[in-house]
């Protein structure tokens, strides 16, 4: 009995992998299975990185009423190839006083850490590399390696700007790791599991045409927003890109990197962004599940990547809109707003769990989140008087 074509299309990569692996002797089958998946992940996400760089540059250009890159290939879409060739042929400079080994290891570790996180992301039905029962925990543990790589880069370069940038990055990443984890706790509470596959499976049902995504609850919506803000800071993207701060500390921790190592940092940063976006999709946006019940015929992996591209587009949009924060604003925002809000969100998720379903539950939970957010933003604004700036010398 063959499955219906829709299911075939959905599982095409899974069956293909099984068939390829089936040609090998039993002894090698399990390892070949893993290697094939790893190669697929590395290829797909590296390609996505290449596409994202050109789309980002074009999008930012359009936001600033420019064309963006439009010279290499049709409409500039071969730009990543030119960039790759450029970074490969550039001289690889290492400062004489740098710690050679650590300086070399930092970008490698960053990319490895970024790729490791994809092991637990279910990019489609039955398409997670491993279904760890502590998948979310694994994700955050691997994500912490990025901080180590960043500090290795900053420290080994023996440059005051790179050290400053690395210290900023560490302070920022550790500060935002707290709200990032706390924002995802609500989902773990609701799903009762740390396994990413189980969390997605929880969200695949439909009421009428509407999906059971966690983002469609008050705590889920708040959690999603808090998670995305923290993820932006975690991946060092604008408006939280002050570890790089081109205009202040000239690229921060990777100031002493050139050529392909710089490209590796770039790659690692984008891979981290995709991975946290992928986790946000897994936790809040139903993973590979279709947004409406009548759209389930579209293969699951397409839904995952459509959602991922949407998240990337939002990241680019935000980057094109907001200016960089100041260090104190960044820290105050993490500890004075994000942390209390995530804790309140955990409480709201608990209330949601124990209240009977209905409109009242919705209203209570929404009020539990909106009122504190409003009061908190008002309270933090107290004592900050906005007035026309007076100049002492430049009048």
């Amino acid at each position, binding site marked *: 009995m063959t499955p219906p074509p829709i299911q075939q299309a959905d599982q095409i990569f899974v069956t293909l992998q099984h068939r390829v692996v089936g040609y090998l002797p039993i002894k090698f089958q399990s390892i070949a299975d893993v290697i094939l998946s790893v190669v697929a992940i590395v290829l797909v996400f590296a390609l996505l990185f290449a596409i994202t760089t050109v789309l980002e540059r074009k999008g930012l250009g359009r*936001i600033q*009423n*420019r064309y963006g890159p439009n010279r290499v290939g049709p409409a500039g879409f071969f730009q990543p190839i030119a960039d790759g060739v450029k970074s490969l042929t550039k001289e690889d400079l290492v400062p004489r006083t740098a710690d050679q080994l650590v300086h070399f290891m930092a970008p490698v570790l960053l990319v490895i850490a970024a790729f490791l996180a994809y092991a637990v992301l279910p990019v489609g039905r039955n398409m997670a590399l491993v279904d760890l029962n502590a998948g979310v925990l694994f994700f955050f543990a691997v994500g912490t390696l990025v901080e180590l790589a960043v500090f290795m880069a900053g420290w080994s370069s023996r440059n005051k700007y790179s050290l400053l940038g690395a210290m900023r990055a560490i302070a920022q990443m550790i500060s935002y790791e707290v709200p990032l984890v706390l924002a995802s706790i609500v989902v773990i509470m609701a799903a009762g599991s740390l396994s990413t596959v189980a969390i997605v499976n929880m969200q695949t049902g439909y009421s009428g045409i509407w999906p059971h995504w966690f983002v469609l609850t008050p705590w889920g919506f708040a959690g999603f927003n808090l998670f995305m803000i923290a993820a932006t800071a975690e991946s060092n993207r604008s408006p939280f890109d002050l570890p790089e701060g081109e205009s202040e500390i000239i690229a921060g921790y990777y100031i002493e990197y050139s050529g392909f190592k710089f490209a590796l940092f770039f790659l690692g940063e984008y891979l981290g962004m995709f991975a946290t976006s992928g986790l946000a999709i897994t936790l809040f946006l139903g993973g590979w599940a279709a947004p409406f019940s009548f759209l389930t015929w579209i293969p699951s992996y397409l839904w995952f990547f459509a959602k991922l591209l949407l998240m990337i587009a939002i990241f680019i*949009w935000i980057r094109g809109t907001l200016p960089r924060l100041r260090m104190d604003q960044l820290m105050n925002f993490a500890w004075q707003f994000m942390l209390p809000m995530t804790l309140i969100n955990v409480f709201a998720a608990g209330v949601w769990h124990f209240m009977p379903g209905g409109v009242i539950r919705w209203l209570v939970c929404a009020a539990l989140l909106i009122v504190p*957010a409003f009061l908190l933003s008002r309270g933090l604004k107290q004592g900050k008087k*906005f007035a026309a700036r007076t100049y002492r010398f430049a009048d």
Partner: protein
Amino acid sequence: MLVILSVAKNLGIVWNFEVEVETVFGEGILKGLAETARNFLGSYVSKNRLTTVQYPEERLPQIEAYRNFPFLVYDGEDWQQGLRCVSCFICEKECPPKCIFIEKSTDKKPDAVGKPQFYPTVFNIDISVCMSCQICVEVCPFDAIKMDTDFELSTGNRFSGLLWDKKHLAKSNEHYHKIHPTEAAAVDAQLAADRAKTAAKAKAAAEAKPAAAPATPPPVPAGSEK
């Protein structure tokens, strides 16, 4: 989002551009996002937004007063025959960065109007040194050197590629008219007036000569007094 904001703008609810403390949490960010979205979408709709001139394909018209590096003007068809330069060395001496090198000829050669003149056997300008100050043009008594407008001068060799010789520097008077029409017309008018004056003087001298001829020694050949 865009629609809502534009409706709200028309109703006068939001979008007042005075500086004010934002009232709703996150309103400023939403406004900013709407603005960038408007730019993003608008750049696909309205060509007027994309102000960048796509340079190699599109070019802005050059303003007439633009100048870059000097060139040597010649009259007529043949550049060697018509070169106005008589290698008087004034520009070489005046050039502040000393980028001009001239070697004077030992013989004389008729110029465009047939008058025997010295001419430069070598006339080099090193444009890697030239600072486009136009002083050579100001000091030239023969209107022989003028400023060019060509700016696409990239070359594969930074030494010989940027050291321009006489042949490279020679450009026709028509070229001068094309790049600086007003200035070239004025120069041509001045030259024509000068030539007319010289011709009139020569004519007067020729008329006076037969009368005084018996008293004076035979005249030197024409053209050698210069």
